[in-house]
């Protein structure tokens, strides 16, 4: 009967919402500070950020030596 299957579906929705409402959250200021901290700590190890020189980045073309 469609009535009872709607009921089952609704119960699932409510259960899911109860679960989601109950999780622990932190303030955005705290979360944002942590995201920023991660960026700063790892900045030097980020080749696309720092721009790795041609000699160490295999994708950047190296200058070709020519014999004179």
């Amino acid at each position, binding site marked *: 009967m469609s009535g009872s299957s709607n009921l089952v579906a609704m119960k699932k929705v*409510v259960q899911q919402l109860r679960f989601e409402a109950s999780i622990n959250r932190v303030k955005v200021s705290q979360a944002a500070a942590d*995201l920023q901290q991660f960026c700063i*700590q790892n900045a030097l190890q980020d080749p*696309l950020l720092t721009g790795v020189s041609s000699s160490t980045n295999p994708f950047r073309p190296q200058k070709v030596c020519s014999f004179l």
Partner: protein
Amino acid sequence: MRSPPIPEMATQEVQLSETLAHLKTESDTLKGKLEEERAKLHDVELHQVAEKVEGLGQFVMKTRRTLKGHGNKVLCMDWCKDKRRIVSSSQDGKVIVWDAFTTNKEHAVTMPCTWVMACAYAPSGCAVACGGLDNKCSVYPLSLDKNENLAAKKKSVAMHTNYLSACSFTNSDMQILTSSGDGTCALWDVESGQLLQSFHGHAADVLCLDLAPSETGNTFVSGGCDKKANVWDMRSGQCIQSFETHESDINSVRYYPSGDAFASGSDDATCRLYDLRADREVAIYSKESIIFGVSSVDFSLSGRLLFGGYNDYTINVWDVLKGTRVSILFGHENRVSTLRVSPDGTAFCTGSWDHTLRTWA
């Protein structure tokens, strides 16, 4: 005199609809409470916190290699852990493995279907997975013998009831996670083809998925045509968090390298950042001049840069913390359909409807 049975049934139906109404009210109340709880913690914007961070300079990123060989739109690509090989798949049914340094093609497989929308490299580098309109995800072991027919060793792993939109190996060659137009995601055992867990909750096609970095545990995020991004517990199959702020299909989701957040790209022309611990959207990356959808997103290694491939043929590079665009890259001659940063972060690769792939650095 006995009462006729009809009033009893009527009573049952009344009880049922009262319970339904009761549940609907509770559902609405809970949704309101959820918004309230999230709003309480919204004390500041990410870009405000990042005001004191040094701005980024000019970026010089160019196409370093162009991989030509596909006969039609490139739909998906993935890097091998060796940081040089790439697998790509196309509308023409071909899956190609390339050496991105030399641009040589190392393997090619012709799938029995067109629109191979998903492909992934196995962590060992010894196999690739792919699928699309065939509704399946198949695994091909890569042979060292170039003459061997890869198609002969093909293993069908996943079976969905609609197209395969994305696939990813977990941290071993043994399990594959898939998402599908049938609205579900699923976890499969590669050897036996057995379904280990299925994930229900999206109300429409699921278009993308990304696994959390291994240090953060067994979760993954998925995005779909229902405009929702869902975070799932891989073991229980439960949806643990859900975000619905995009205004259109979510085409791509990618975890921030720390695992505490993820970015999404959508047909609504925006990329957004969701923090998992704050349980809310914390940044939107958009400009009035950008009106075409985002097909794919990925972070640089530190998470400071977000690369987005767009349907207007460009790549926009965003400062994740400050919310500003730092660069716009041109080169492709049609939509950018897929974008991934290499495992060591030295380059990123894009695939396009212009039939080519490009690596940028």
